[in-house]
């Protein structure tokens, strides 16, 4: 179970939610509250309750007429934001183009470099012996017959080595990995409750789990990767896949 139980107490939820909606929190406390909202449905519900109630009053306020220049400035700023995004994406393509024309020598170098970088992540950690206990095959969410893009393997705690997850991308999809931050969730096989596991480490490295996170993975029917810390839904879920328990190899 993630998050603190006290944020599930109705009185505390209600108090925090009303403070949040009233805007009585400092910027820092509000930021902390927003990260709690993403993982505490009770708190999120309490905020939605007070926000909805007071929004009825706000809706009754006589509307003001904004100046024409306000929209023009918004439009201009959004165009600049989009242009920056576009140019970042274009320069990425241009760098790919350079790779394409670099010739066989370049391709060979890239291949060797990729092998060099991938080998540590493909090889299981030397501290873990034996096979994975659970495996989830992850593919693009909500797409029928989507190809498996990567595999999450879960290894149970052994001695001093904590329980761990490894994320291993399929060779055909490694270029799709990109720099996006992905958040892992486990869907409880009995209750369907989503349990937040955490943000995937930036590097190709083992992902140590504490006991509650390990239990959440072990009791899950499905793992999901989201683009933000909000509870998984059709908008923020990027990858999902069934989580299955593996039996031990028989010698």
């Amino acid at each position, binding site marked *: 179970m993630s998050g603190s139980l006290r944020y599930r107490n109705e009185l505390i939820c*209600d*108090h925090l939610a*009303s403070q*949040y*909606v*009233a*805007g*009585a929190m400092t*910027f820092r406390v*509000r930021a902390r509250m*927003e990260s709690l*909202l*993403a993982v505490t*449905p009770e708190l*999120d*519900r309490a*905020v*939605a*309750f007070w*926000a*909805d*109630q*007071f*929004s*009825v*009053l*706000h*809706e*009754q*306020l*006589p*509307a*003001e*007429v*904004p*100046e024409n*220049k*306000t*929209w023009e*400035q*918004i*439009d201009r*700023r*959004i165009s600049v*934001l*989009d242009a920056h995004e576009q140019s970042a994406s274009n320069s990425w393509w241009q760098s790919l183009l350079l790779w394409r024309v670099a010739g066989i020598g370049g391709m060979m170098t890239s291949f060797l470099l990729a092998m060099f970088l991938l080998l540590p992540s493909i090889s299981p950690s030397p501290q873990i012996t034996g096979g994975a206990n659970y495996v989830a095959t992850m593919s693009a969410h909500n797409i029928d017959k989507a190809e498996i893009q990567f595999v999450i393997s879960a290894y149970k705690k052994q001695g001093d080595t904590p329980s761990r997850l490894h994320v291993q991308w399929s060779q055909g999809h490694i270029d799709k990995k990109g720099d996006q931050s992905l958040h892992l969730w486990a869907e409880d096989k009995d209750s369907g409750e989503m349990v937040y596991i955490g943000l995937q480490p930036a590097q190709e490295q083992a992902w140590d789990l504490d006991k509650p996170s390990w239990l959440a993975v072990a009791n899950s029917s499905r793992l999901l990767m989201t*683009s*933000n810390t*909000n*509870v998984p*839904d059709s*908008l*923020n879920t990027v990858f999902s896949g069934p989580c299955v328990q593996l039996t031990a190899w028989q010698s």
Partner: protein
Amino acid sequence: MADADWLNNINLLLYRIQQNDKLALKELYGFAGGKLLAIIVRIVKDREEAEDTLQEVFIKVWEQSNKYSGRGSAWGWLCVLARHSALDRLRSLNSHPHSSIHDDEEWLEGLFEADNASTTHSINRCLGHLKEQTRKSILMSFVYGHSHGEVSSELSVPLGTVKAWIRRGLQELKQCLAV
């Protein structure tokens, strides 16, 4: 509750914005920009600053629409976003030029009149049942963005009393709204 079609439209527009539909942002601005500006003006008061804050709100809507979890109405989410942005603007200006609750006396009186159509809204009816000072404290805090300290100075009562009024008032409101 507010007009259901109006609220549904806001929900749909925010959904489209989450899909990067820029036209939907413009439609939302036409649809709710004036209402959001009214919320901001109550807190920031200075018209120019309020218009700048409205700009910030729409940039945030464009960049952070995925923060709306779908729980509660999109309009409620927008109101909270607008209020937080207005209060942040006030803090950055290091000033406290909130509109006075007295500037809106006519509007406020209308909200709680027994024969007024607006009392069909549960929140109006329930606020109308509260003691005057409790209702005033809640409105100053939740509509005009005053801190508890500011409410205490404005009403010339100790801070602890204001906090107690607001806490008890919210409890009574919740009970009333549940009926």
